[in-house]
């Protein structure tokens, strides 16, 4: 049984269909990279898995249980944690308070404030600083740490490199590499193709709300993914412009 199965999922923003019948599955310990251009539906898909958007149709199965209609806070209790785009920290609260909020779900596990601070050493001296006063890299580390505090079975990361300097992104990805090595199951939304392909073992490329390409990261060339990214592979497959 897959850890996560998404079956024919449709998500709408009003009249706009942002995710159009997407299906895929993720096994325990895998790292799946969701790539695609802006507006491809990656963030909406991730938020629908986390329960922040309700699906119009289709199903999300987690550990075999159907999560349809389950609110986001209950999904955290089930073991799904999202690091949202833009970090979305509680800026009036300290780093420690933000991390402790991740414990609200009450899932047992190894993650504690101390362990997060060990995993992200740059946060140690900022423990009692308000989240609103942190640098972009420190905020991202806090957001990832907050999600880890719920001891998730599945970690959803939405654009963790967005708005960060290359040096800081390197640091964040070095921390992620540690998580991946420890066997944490991750779905990663990333604009940077090279980084996405380097850390993942599966990749899904989305285009206009649909899966344009899916497969093993290592057996897929960058050129192949780039074509799917811009919708070029459909042109060659059907012979007509997409």
């Amino acid at each position, binding site marked *: 049984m897959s850890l996560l199965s998404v079956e024919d999922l449709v998500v709408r923003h009003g009249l706009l269909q942002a995710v159009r019948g997407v299906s895929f599955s993720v096994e325990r310990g895998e790292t799946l990279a969701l790539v695609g251009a802006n507006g491809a539906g990656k963030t909406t898909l991730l938020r629908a898995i*986390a*329960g*922040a958007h309700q699906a119009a149709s289709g199903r999300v199965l987690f550990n075999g249980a159907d999560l349809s209609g389950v*609110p*986001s*806070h209950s999904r*955290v*209790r089930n073991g799904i*944690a*999202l690091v*949202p785009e833009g970090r*979305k920290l*509680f*800026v*009036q*609260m300290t780093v420690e*308070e933000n991390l*402790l*909020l*991740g*414990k*609200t*779900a*009450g899932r047992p596990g190894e993650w504690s404030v101390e362990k997060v601070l060990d995993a992200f050493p740059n946060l140690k001296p900022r423990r009692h600083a308000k989240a609103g006063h942190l640098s972009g890299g420190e905020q991202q580390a806090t957001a990832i740490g*907050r*999600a880890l505090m*719920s001891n998730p079975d599945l970690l959803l990361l939405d654009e963790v490199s967005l708005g960060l300097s290359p040096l800081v992104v390197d640091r964040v990805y070095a921390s992620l590499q540690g998580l991946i090595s420890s066997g944490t199951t991750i779905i990663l939304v990333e604009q940077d193709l090279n980084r996405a392909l380097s850390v993942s073992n599966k990749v899904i490329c989305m285009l206009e709300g649909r899966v344009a390409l899916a497969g093993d990261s290592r057996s897929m060339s960058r050129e192949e993914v780039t074509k799917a990214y811009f919708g070029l592979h459909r042109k060659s497959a059907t012979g007509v412009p997409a």
Partner: protein
Amino acid sequence: MSNQIVQGILLGGYYALIACGLSFMFSVMRIINLAHGSLAVLSAFALWLLASRFHISPFLGLVIVLPLMAVIGWALQRFLLERSARGGALLPILTTFGLAIVIDNVLFEQFGADTRSLAPYIGSLSYDSWEWPGSIYVGKLAVIIFITAVVLLGGLQLFLTRTGIGRSIRATSEDPDTAGLVGVDARRAMAIAAAIAMVTVGLAGAFLGMRATFDPYAGATQLLFAFEAAVIGGAGSVWGTLIGGIVLALAQTLGAQVHPQGFLIGGHVAFLIVLFIRLYTSGLGLRGLLRLSTGKTS
């Protein structure tokens, strides 16, 4: 003069107590509860009923009334405020305004227009006092109310910063959607916040009944004092509420020294001065304030 200042500070404790729930609901739930005063009077009537019919001391009656107020707060949030909040910012204000009218008139229907007090049921506490140096007489009840306000506000501050539920309430207040994504049940957090606010309202109602008289329509005055104290203290700040209450009470006490009618006017003047300073320093500037007062927006 020192006697007036001491009395003003002690009265400020009562105003802080009655403003506490209003300020808490505004800062956490973003709701201006216009039924605040009426709910305090409801609590006072409940205690009066227990004391007059069942001979239960108002202090002991709090053991029954405060949990009831918590249940009322929880139910109000779940069945009324939560639903009305979906209709925009104005609807909860109108809803609580309607609720105040309903409570006032139900109390009038049940208890008539007579004024009541809990003072006869607390022995000599309502008029006992200590003599301090300089011929200053300090009412025992006023001191109890002031200490209760400090303990309540301090307890609330500790609750919000040191407990998991407190953090959940603050997170929900800041961003309910993201709070859900970290595992906080935002609906539950808001219902707990409303229950806590109503417990503070219940306590304020008890002290209202002990230190003065009340009738079914006394809620509006209490709401006004609570609103003024909350605004002076910077609505949302726990210790600011205490300072707001003290400033309001001092202004009223000093106003009463100037003119017999000056008690209320002194408080209103202090409120308006602080309000204008806040608006002026908010970045609107003098021109912005003048535009607001004349209704010109461009």
